[in-house]
């Protein structure tokens, strides 16, 4: 179709009018589309943001490989070190200490360095073996190593444990439970509670021990048979110098010691104990010559009470050897020791003042001693303590037992 000039002009005018003026419904549609586009843009930004966060929180393949490698190394290391098998466990514990002593008119030296590793081994829930090596530096620089204890225990049931080997003497409380330096609240053992004093330190034998309930109270017991003590003669060989109540594998009298301890806890913070033992002892003159046997008795009582920050202790122990007229050392005698101690842990601090009184009596004047001790401890941690102590000692004039002493000690249990 062909348009003439007039028709073409009219069509052009309509076209211009259609392009220049949009209707109202078209504007609304555009606004709606724009809003949708803005909404989509916001959602896109949020998705990108979430993706970034997810990337940060998610381990990469390299991360997973690194962890797998580490686990493999740990497993390999554990398998190499687990020589005890799947049913056994081992644990290393112990304690170490060092100390300085200044005695009036006497020693002024760092007089204590010791390391006491304790090894624990356990098979399932039934067998338990424990041993402690006492490693102590001597005055001349030599190192003395002793087997403090090594015993095997069998948990028969909830109330009975059978034990055998060398064990800390169940007679009394201090030697068995409190003598390690990181447990002892004073920088020295009470008079008579050290080695070769009045309190038995250890024995070799076997027995049973455990605990049970008596109504609302708790009872503890230990009953054992052991080789018992040996007798030590003086240099002249005509007196009994000391009772060596440290377990050995010999028994000159050939009679086993029957001993034990029974304790009652009427309250959780109060323990009352009594101990006793009886046996025969004989002087070993050496060369296979052993004298006839004579009586030996040991008895003791102990108390422990805690109330708030207070810790109160007390113990009495006595060993007696009978007379024997035919012996090279006919006179027997009694060695006894007692102490009372009060400590108070100042609340909210590591400070702990300690007051201790002790007395050791013996048939020999040069062994007797009375002591009053005053100490101040600072607990760096529950198992690490710095101790400062002062002993006022009274004994035979001119002997070390009569000289006052200042002590500084640091002990760490692990």
């Amino acid at each position: 179709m062909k348009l003439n000039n007039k028709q073409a002009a009219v069509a052009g005018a309509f076209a211009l009018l259609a392009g220049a003026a949009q209707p109202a419904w078209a504007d609304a549609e555009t606004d709606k589309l724009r809003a949708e586009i803005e909404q989509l843009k916001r959602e896109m930004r949020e998705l990108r943001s979430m993706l970034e966060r997810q990337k940060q929180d998610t381990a990469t393949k390299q991360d997973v490989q690194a962890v797998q490698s580490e686990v493999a190394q740990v497993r390999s290391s554990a398998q190499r070190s687990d020589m005890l098998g799947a049913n056994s466990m081992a644990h290393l514990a112990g304690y170490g200490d060092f100390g300085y002593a200044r005695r009036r008119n006497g020693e002024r030296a760092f007089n204590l360095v010791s390391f006491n590793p304790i090894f624990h081994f356990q098979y399932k829930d039934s067998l338990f073996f424990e041993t402690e090596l006492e490693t102590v530096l001597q005055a001349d620089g030599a190192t003395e190593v002793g087997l403090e204890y090594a015993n095997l225990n069998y948990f028969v049931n909830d109330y009975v444990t059978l034990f055998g080997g060398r064990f800390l003497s169940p007679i009394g409380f201090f030697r068995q439970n409190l003598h390690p330096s990181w447990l002892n609240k004073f920088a020295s053992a009470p008079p008579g509670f050290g080695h070769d004093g009045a309190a038995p330190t250890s024995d070799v034998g076997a027995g049973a021990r455990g605990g049970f309930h008596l109504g609302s109270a708790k009872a503890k017991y230990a009953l054992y048979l052991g080789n018992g003590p040996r007798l030590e003669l003086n240099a002249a060989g005509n007196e009994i110098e000391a009772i060596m109540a440290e377990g050995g594998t010999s028994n000159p009298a050939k009679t086993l010691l029957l001993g034990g301890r029974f304790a009652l806890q009427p309250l959780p913070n109060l323990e009352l104990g009594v101990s006793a033992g009886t046996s025969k002892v004989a002087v070993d003159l050496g060369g296979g010559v052993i004298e006839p046997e004579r009586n030996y008795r040991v008895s003791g009582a102990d108390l422990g009470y805690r109330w708030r920050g207070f810790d109160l202790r007390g113990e009495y122990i006595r060993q007696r050897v009978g007379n024997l007229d035919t012996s090279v050392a006919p006179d027997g005698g009694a060695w006894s020791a007692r102490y009372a101690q009060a400590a108070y842990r100042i609340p909210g601090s590591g400070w702990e003042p300690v007051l201790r009184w002790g007395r050791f009596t013996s048939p020999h004047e040069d062994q007797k001693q009375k002591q009053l001790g005053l100490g101040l401890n600072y607990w760096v941690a529950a198992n690490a303590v710095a101790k400062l102590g002062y002993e006022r000692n009274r004994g035979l004039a001119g002997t070390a037992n009569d000289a006052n002493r200042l002590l500084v000690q640091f002990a760490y249990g692990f």
Partner: protein
Amino acid sequence: MNLSKLAVASLATLSIVSGGNALAQQPGAPKPAAAQQRADPAAFARGAKAWAGNCAQCHNMRDPKDFRDDQWKIIMSHMRIRAGLTGQEARDILRFLEASN
């Protein structure tokens, strides 16, 4: 019969009379005590009480976090002997320590 022989006889009798539980716990057998302990909701409370009442008799209280579960297990065997704990007390304290470290 002297005292030593009497003591040996007493220990043997004690072991035989009280040995039933031990014989029931043969190697490889299930551990009824351990399973029962896990299912006992009061064990934690009993353990906390026994822990507070017994441990401080000799030493300062240790933080349960000082040792791992496997370490506490063997330490508790040592303390059971040293402190005269019953087996139940030892298991309760172990349960408390394992849940608190």
